[in-house]
């Protein structure tokens, strides 16, 4: 399996993402944002976390016009699998590849800690290795992670099983760290080939570092190839 990982100026999670997928047996390639095409053998494209373009204007707002994004849109439109983590999620919502937007955290603080997430819908390649209701422990690290979508949009997400994970406590009860609508931590598109989440599964690959629950989250992609 080949995972291509996007790198913008200011991206800082590309090497963690590379480590995570290589640990799961994938081969990886880091793709600079000026590339006009993606590696032809790409099975999964990851928009890695960080602070593309210093989060200027809005998080992800300038990255969406990088040359590579045209290729990403074509790749997604043809059914290619795309995963956006943290800033990658922001880039995907700004690009219109995922619904909603990420606002400043309700408490205005940058939050960096482990947080529990409940799996909401596993009827997709991303979360197929987990069960609905499972709780995982995954780090979050963001300033603009407050997911917003209007009421009609929320109803649509619910009706199509597009909500992937919600912020909860260890028992799976809603615990919202940043003010996100319906405590949403990650969503996918209607076609279920574009995924985005604020938490960092690629940082939860080793028990020694606090949790290896990221393995169960990311291996769905590897097993689907």
């Amino acid at each position, binding site marked *: 399996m080949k995972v291509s990982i996007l790198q913008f100026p200011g991206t800082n999670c590309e090497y963690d993402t590379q480590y995570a997928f290589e640990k799961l047996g994938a081969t990886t390639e880091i793709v600079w944002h000026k590339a006009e095409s993606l590696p032809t053998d790409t099975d999964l494209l990851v928009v890695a976390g960080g602070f593309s373009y210093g989060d200027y204007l*809005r998080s992800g707002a300038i990255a969406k016009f990088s040359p590579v994004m045209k290729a990403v849109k074509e790749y997604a439109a043809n059914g290619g699998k795309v995963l956006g983590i943290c800033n990658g999620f922001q880039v995907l919502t700004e690009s219109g590849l995922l619904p*909603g937007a990420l*606002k400043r*955290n*309700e408490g205005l603080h940058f939050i960096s800690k482990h947080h529990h997430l409940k799996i909401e819908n596993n009827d997709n390649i991303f979360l197929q290795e987990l069960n609905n209701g499972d709780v995982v422990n995954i780090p979050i690290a963001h300033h603009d992670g*407050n997911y917003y*979508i209007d009421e009609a949009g929320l109803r649509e997400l619910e009706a199509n099983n597009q909500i992937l994970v919600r912020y909860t406590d260890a028992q799976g009860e809603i615990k919202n760290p940043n003010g996100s609508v319906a405590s949403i931590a990650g969503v996918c598109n209607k076609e279920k080939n574009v995924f985005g989440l604020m938490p960092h599964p690629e940082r939860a690959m080793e028990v020694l570092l606090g949790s290896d629950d990221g393995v169960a989250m990311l291996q769905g992609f590897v097993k689907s190839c």
Partner: protein
Amino acid sequence: MKAIVNISLKAGVLDSQGKAVHHALDSLHFNGVKDVRVGKQIVLQLDESDKEKAMADVTKMCEELLANTVIEDYEIELV
């Protein structure tokens, strides 16, 4: 010509920064403040001298980049 673009969160979208500023004003005993909204202002120096054309251009800039219309409204003033 100069275009002044004011961008703010849409009515109905919770403005956490506005809320925090309101709270700070309260604690300074400025009690007459009913609501606070924090936005941002972007000032563009334009070559264009035709107002209608400038308005159309800046509107397109707002829709494509300057504002995220999922959560933000924008107002354009030409001077």
